[in-house]
């Protein structure tokens, strides 16, 4: 019997997502496919698998990732799904504790990969915001004290285009930075630990 569940996790909440998948597995629902917000589960033995999520350095189809996933397979780890660079991995619970990384350096590097995505998106948003501002100033030089162009109404343009666009962009920027906070915190905590132990 298959079950499809729609659920949304943000990029900063992959540990929550992992926890949820393991809770589902404990109830006998094992993830077999996932993409963005759609999760497909198959009924099976309760707690048969432990699930982990990993953000790869390259897309799963890249030769480096393919070699890595093959290696994981040799250690009993199965890739059940992937979404962009994220892979959904599982291993039989009977084979013992299942973690992807056992050393601090790799854990920190993984956190940094996740944070880097948020940073990339934020930079794009900042560029778009700057473009909007420049466009507004070019259209309406009086915004920065320049001469008024004849026949152009400033206020309607500002209220109908610039301000809504900037509001949406700024809100997205704040959202992206907020959802990544848990990952940044984890990264800092691990880095502090790294100063006194391996």
């Amino acid at each position, binding site marked *: 019997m298959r079950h499809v569940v729609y659920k949304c996790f943000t990029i900063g909440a992959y540990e929550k997502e992992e926890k949820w998948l393991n809770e589902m597995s404990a109830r006998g629902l094992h993830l077999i496919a996932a993409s963005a917000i759609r999760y497909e589960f198959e009924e099976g033995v309760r707690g048969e698998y432990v699930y982990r999520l990993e953000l790869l350095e390259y897309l799963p189809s890249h030769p480096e990732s393919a070699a890595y996933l093959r290696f994981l397979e040799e*250690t009993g780890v199965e890739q059940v799904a992937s979404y962009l660079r994220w892979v959904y991995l599982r291993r039989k619970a009977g084979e013992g504790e299942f973690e992807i990384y056992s050393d601090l350096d790799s854990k920190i590097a993984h956190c940094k990969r996740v944070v880097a995505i948020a940073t990339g998106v934020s930079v794009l948003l900042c560029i778009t915001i700057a473009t909007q501002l420049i466009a507004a100033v070019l259209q309406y030089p009086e915004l920065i004290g320049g001469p008024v162009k004849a026949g152009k109404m400033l206020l309607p343009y500002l209220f109908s285009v610039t301000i809504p666009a900037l509001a949406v962009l700024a809100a997205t920027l704040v959202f992206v930075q907020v959802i990544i906070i848990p990952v940044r915190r984890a990264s800092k905590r691990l880095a502090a630990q790294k100063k006194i132990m391996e």
Partner: protein
Amino acid sequence: MGYENGALTEAVYYILLSLLEPLHGYGIMQNAERLSGGRVRLAAGTLYGALTALLERGWICAAQGEASLRKKEYVITEQGRQALREELARLRELVRSGETVMEGRI
């Protein structure tokens, strides 16, 4: 050739110890756990990263042979042995220092 007197990571140390005989990834994980009495559990991602770095460094190489066709096997090189010897000497020194200082104090 010196090895910068750096400490090896626990993962690297147990990988090198395990690869005195040709062995595949899963075998290394089991060996490290057995040798350490269950304390050292190398996770697959960590193990892969360390193996890749060690291959690049020339301390281990891919093992030739039939078994390696099914699951990729690795084996230590002379450079790797040298690193292991130096690490063992360093660890002995650490234990000596600790014992000298701690003797009778705790």
